[in-house]
């Protein structure tokens, strides 16, 4: 088999996001579908043209091709130009100006805020963002989110329709609107990240791409003074801390490894450093969000050289702060887990008794897994096995099922 060429990874994908954003700024969001097709054409052209020789600057080549394509577009949707007064105004701006780096970043931010617009169904926002900003195909999105391609198609179509029908302006909101919308933008980015980090998707490369995309989007918000704030900095730090452990979460035979069994030498140090640096900026104001506390917890885990050295006392403290700021049954469950690690069984029992499985939705198996651990640690093997059985009957993900089965076997063997 012939050797692959050493071109920048994901150049096309990132270029897709840039070009779609710029073209939407020029032609308007209502032409999104045509624009995505046009950008697609640019890549096909590149494949033909680059067959024999790579250009010196592939990125510049693509940009020029996109600009030329844009001029074609001008001709083909000329009638649209007459209908939309806006377009003439925007088009009057020197088009070249919009291809400068700052303006590209600005266009992409507008696209992020469009994807997170309240007029879009929350379920559709992620699929739309992955398509328009991330340059993923429907098939790739379906694989990453473990959904059917047909579902993704519906979501994207519905989102595009909402964008067109509700006449969403292609802009970064201002003032109070900016503050409110940024909250949703961060939620969507974190959801995207979690799809990658916690997903049942077995292909590590796919998961890394989702995590990387979430990091890239949050970095864009940080790089613009309008959208940068302590929350997005903390979110970025948090995602760096988690990402550092991504490679060690699963072993060669595709089994989930918990914090106790992960090979800590595999943690990726540069991401820890990047996270720490950003965390220093994020904590400067002294106002903390849920992302700050979650980052603090993730950071405590990274600090421990061995599992035994984990500072559970501080972790519990951060969970308590998190719970005070944003009460959630998942915080309580995590606190029970920490209590068990501290061998504070009565505290663990207290917390678990406050919870009901239904509060945890799809992840209620975690609740039973925690009870199982409690009974195991307090020497009640029969109850522990029973709780594992319940958890195993509820777990939706094969990898986690394997993990629980193994734990149950170990209790049985003892």
């Amino acid at each position, binding site marked *: 088999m012939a050797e692959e*060429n050493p071109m920048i990874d994901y150049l096309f994908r990132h270029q897709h996001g840039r070009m779609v954003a710029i073209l939407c700024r020029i032609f308007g969001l209502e032409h999104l579908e045509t624009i995505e097709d046009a950008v*697609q054409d640019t890549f096909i052209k590149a494949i033909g043209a680059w067959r024999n020789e790579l250009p010196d600057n592939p990125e510049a080549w693509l940009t020029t091709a996109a600009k030329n394509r844009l001029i074609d577009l001008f001709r083909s949707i000329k009638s649209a130009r007459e209908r939309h007064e806006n377009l003439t105004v925007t088009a009057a701006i020197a088009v070249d100006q919009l291809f400068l780096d700052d303006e590209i970043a600005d266009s992409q931010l507008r696209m992020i805020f469009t994807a997170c617009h309240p007029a879009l169904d929350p379920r559709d926002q992620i699929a739309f963002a992955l398509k328009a900003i991330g340059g993923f195909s429907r098939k790739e999105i379906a694989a990453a989110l473990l959904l059917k391609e047909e579902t993704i198609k519906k979501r994207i179509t519905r989102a595009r329709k909402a964008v067109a029908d509700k006449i969403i302006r292609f802009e970064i909101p201002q003032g109070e609107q900016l503050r409110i919308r940024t909250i949703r933008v961060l939620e969507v980015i974190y959801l995207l990240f979690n799809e990658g980090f916690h997903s049942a998707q077995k292909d590590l490369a796919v998961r890394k791409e989702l995590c990387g995309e979430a990091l890239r989007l949050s970095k864009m918000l940080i790089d613009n003074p309008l959208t940068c704030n302590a929350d997005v900095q903390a979110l970025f730090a948090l995602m760096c801390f988690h990402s550092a452990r991504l490679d060690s979460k699963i072993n060669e035979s595709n089994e989930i490894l918990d914090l106790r069994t992960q090979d800590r030498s595999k943690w990726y140090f540069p991401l820890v450093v990047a996270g720490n640096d950003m965390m220093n900026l994020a904590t400067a104001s002294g106002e903390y969000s849920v992302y700050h506390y979650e980052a603090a917890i993730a950071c405590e885990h990274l600090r421990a050289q061995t599992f035994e050295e984990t500072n559970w006392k501080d972790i519990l403290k951060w969970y308590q702060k998190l719970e005070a700021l944003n009460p959630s049954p998942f915080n309580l469950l995590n606190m029970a887990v920490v209590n068990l690690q501290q061998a504070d069984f009565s505290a663990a029992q207290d917390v678990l008794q406050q919870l009901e499985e239904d509060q945890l939705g799809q992840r209620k198996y975690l609740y039973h897994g925690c009870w199982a651990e409690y009974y195991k640690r307090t020497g009640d093997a029969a109850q522990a096995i029973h709780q594992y059985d319940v958890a195993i009957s509820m777990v939706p993900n094969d990898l986690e099922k394997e993990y629980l089965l193994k734990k149950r076997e170990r209790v049985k063997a003892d």
Partner: protein
Amino acid sequence: MLVFLGADYATMGLSPDEMQQRMGKWFAWNQKMQDAGQVETGHALDSTKVRQVSGPARTVTDRAGSEVKELIGGYYVVKAADFDAAEVIAADFPDYDLGGTVEIREVMVFN
């Protein structure tokens, strides 16, 4: 001559990433042939627009590439001792998995 049929990227819904990977494979194949001194010439053909002229009346039809059943996507003229040697070169064509076909034809030489 290696003539490439089918596997029109424009109609396949490939993602940018998949297209970049395709491009990498084409580039690598070309590089391999160049290094072996096999390539004489070659072109990729634009498939967005096809103009066909046919019949005694020279009837002209403009069609989109996607409407043509087996579209020629490009060709290479390579130096090969015989069909078997050309077949070895053609084995690296990147698009078999997308339903592409390579047709090997000898360029006739008159002397």
